[in-house]
């Protein structure tokens, strides 16, 4: 048995690695630029004079100039690592050129010539030269080769233009780019070694460093651990109350199969199971939090804003907001009670027809002894898996409740972070929750094996 548990624990590691890879690559394909968000966070004007320099500093500080993964599989005309271009506009333009299947070497030549052209200040004699100069700056933004050539031709044909030789060279480099276009290519494997973004990110996360929130500059780890408490509290309350209500109800209904209690509760659970949680929450908020529909309907406090001051301990804030938790917990447990009590009931009914129960009955045991010694242990065992499985599902379930009732848990945090494009937080939460899910699944399995007599004896 120890061997099985060890094997099960070891098998978790590759799964976690793959989960990390998935979370990382999802965080890489988000819209937007993390370095730019950092600029906004630092309060630097994006059009200001030193924005470029600061951007590049942030860019390399965040390690975005490193290759993405241990290896990459690119077409042969690609550079080994596109990320190493520090300037944002140049990087985007290079990517856009590469998407048109132009060779990276030609693109580099083009950029070099363009830079040398813009290093030369033109002599502005009159207004028409000014217009020419503004035409020239269009080159800095365009990635359509035909359009670039058109601009270059109008510039060279104009007698006022200086540095005609450079312009002609530039045009030639564009021609070369179009000529060398790679319509046929083969995949090329680039090995980047350990100095890459994924490795950096993974080692940071394994040491507990999730990075900085792009919205308010706080550490993501702090934000998550603050939110995690509330989510775990909700899950604990959910499982506690669900078990407390559903298991006895299910046991009794199954034991007295066909009775009035059984019929009514079964019908009620079917209805309750189909109720969308957010509908129940909305109904309760609309009808039961104000005296608009009669004074006796004003049962619960209005879901308010949860302002938790810095330094207030968890217990203190819990005491302060305990009244606010009643309604969320009611909504949370609604579906779960229905599910759990139905499962318990069916278990009991199945057990009642077992031979050993008939035997116990024929032995002359009374009802209570049969229930306590024979039905209860066997009916409760499968519930370990069900309840254990409820924990990860409970994290999901608490998301919408947290959002509706303004509880500052993980669900609310991910929701707010999605709206403020704070991708660092979003994917860190996704990763943390996935890791918790994996661990809970592992724990459920181990507990199930540890307490299940059949499996235990089979393994021994």
């Amino acid at each position: 048995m120890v061997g099985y548990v060890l094997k099960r624990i070891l098998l978790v590691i590759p799964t976690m690695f793959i989960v990390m890879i998935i979370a990382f690559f999802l965080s890489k394909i988000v819209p937007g630029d993390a370095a730019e968000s950092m600029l906004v966070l630092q309060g630097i004007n994006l059009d200001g004079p030193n924005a470029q320099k600061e951007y590049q500093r942030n860019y390399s500080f965040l390690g975005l100039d490193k290759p993405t993964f241990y290896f990459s599989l690119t077409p042969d005309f690609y550079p080994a690592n596109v990320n190493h271009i520090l300037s944002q506009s140049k990087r985007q333009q290079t990517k856009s050129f590469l998407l048109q299947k132009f060779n990276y070497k030609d693109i580099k030549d083009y950029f070099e010539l363009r830079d040398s052209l813009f290093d030369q200040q033109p002599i502005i004699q009159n207004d028409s030269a000014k217009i020419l100069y503004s035409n020239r700056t269009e080159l800095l933004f365009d990635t359509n080769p035909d359009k670039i050539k058109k601009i270059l031709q109008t510039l060279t044909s104009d007698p006022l233009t200086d540095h005609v030789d450079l312009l002609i060279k530039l045009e030639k480099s564009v021609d070369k780019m179009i000529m060398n276009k790679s319509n046929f290519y083969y995949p090329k494997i680039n090995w980047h070694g350990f100095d890459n973004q994924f490795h950096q990110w993974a080692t940071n996360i394994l040491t507990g460093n999730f990075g900085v929130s792009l919205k308010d500059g706080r550490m993501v780890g702090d934000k998550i651990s603050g939110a995690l408490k509330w989510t775990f509290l909700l899950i604990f309350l959910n499982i506690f109350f669900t078990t407390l209500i559903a298991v006895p109800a299910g046991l009794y209904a199954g034991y007295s199969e066909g009775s009035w209690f059984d019929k009514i509760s079964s019908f009620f659970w079917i209805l309750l199971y189909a109720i969308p949680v957010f509908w129940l929450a909305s109904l309760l908020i609309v009808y039961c939090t104000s005296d608009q529909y009669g004074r006796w309907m004003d049962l619960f406090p209005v879901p308010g804003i949860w302002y938790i001051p810095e330094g207030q301990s968890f217990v203190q804030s819990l005491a302060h907001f305990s009244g606010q938790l009643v309604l969320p917990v009611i909504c949370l447990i609604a579906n779960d009670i229905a599910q759990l009590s139905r499962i318990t009931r069916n278990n009991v009914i199945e057990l009642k027809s077992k031979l050993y129960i008939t035997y116990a009955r024929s032995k002359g045991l009374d009802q209570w002894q049969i229930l306590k010694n024979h039905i209860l242990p066997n009916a409760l065992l499968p519930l370990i898996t069900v309840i254990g499985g409820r924990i990860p599902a409970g994290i999901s379930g608490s998301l919408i409740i947290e959002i509706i009732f303004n509880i500052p848990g993980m669900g609310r945090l991910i929701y707010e972070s999605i709206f403020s494009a704070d991708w660092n937080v979003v994917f860190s939460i996704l990763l943390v929750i996935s890791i918790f899910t994996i661990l809970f699944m592992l724990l459920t399995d181990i507990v199930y094996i540890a307490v299940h007599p059949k499996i235990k004896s089979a393994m021994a």
Partner: protein
Amino acid sequence: MKSVKDISYKLSKWILAIYFIVAIMAPFLAGDKPIYCYENGKMSFPMFSSSFSDIPIIKNYPSEACLWPLIPFSPTNIDHNNQSAISPFASGDKKQFQLRHWLGTDKLGRDVAAGMIHGTVVSLKIGVFSVFFTFIIGVSLGIFSAYYRDDDLSITLPVLLINTILFFGGLYYLIMEWIIFKPSFLLFFTGFVILVLVLFFLSKMIKNKFNSKKYAFPLDLLLIKLIEIRKSFPGIFILLSLVSLFTIPSLWNIIFIISLLGWTEFARFARAETLAVKEENFILNAKVLGFNDLRIIIHHILPNILPTLMVIACFSMAGAILLESTLSFLGIGLPVEEVTWGKMMAEGRNMKAWWLVVFPGLAIFLLILSLNTIASGFQKSNVQKLL
């Protein structure tokens, strides 16, 4: 005597049918253009002709001469006289009976009844299409992995090498050409299907050409690992993060993501059922008769596991509809102009307007309830068939 369960099963079937009828007939039930007009001896069908689109207001058509949809508002039609959420009891132009808002209006003055009908279309679209895709992906993976297990799909090393190189090479070019350079999902998908078919027939052709040692291909293990990885991402969190990656919101994104995430249920059940059916005598007989694997799977295994899969289909359709309404309740994923049940409910919660909460919620509740009842009805009839 019929039991309560039989009656509720039949009733649920009827309710589901009504939902589908409403969704299919949606343009005729709610719209701001008359279906048919007979005016000055001329017949016209304003609903079907685009030239009338500039005069969508009811007053432009004499109501006696025209046949109107049941609710003469389109879901996006803004009624300026009845803005900021008018309750059903207090709303509408009392003089013109037809212009009443039977279920009230929302914040902008859009008719709730028309919105409900449009919401039915959205929900059922998502439910049906996502179940369709998850069914195809999950069932095929589940059946194949259970049929071949870990050691029945043996393959010689050269064939495996050729197949791997060709598959990943082909996939690489497909991704490069139609996802990176010229994004076109349709071309990519067609290319992928062609690639798989070519490889399938190629490996059949060259199967017996090599006489080297055979290795088992662990298809079942791969599927189980894949399901485990999928299960370690909790449902709505991964859904939210995936949906937020799309810059342009659309219905098809949600269908795509729900299919991507939801196939595991089908795979698990199809696998378990196939494992049970595989040991039956008629499968062994079919093998002895020399039928090929594909024929056995399609003609003998699939029909036998279909009843169980229908149960899962009902449950997962309910799940997909619930997910969509949760997403639109949160205001993520669907275009702004699309009116759905979830969005109406979110607005009702904020404005404390009961008609915006009760009616859409009741629609979701009834739909999910009837789907669940149908599923358990299927389950019961499956058990009865076995006995």
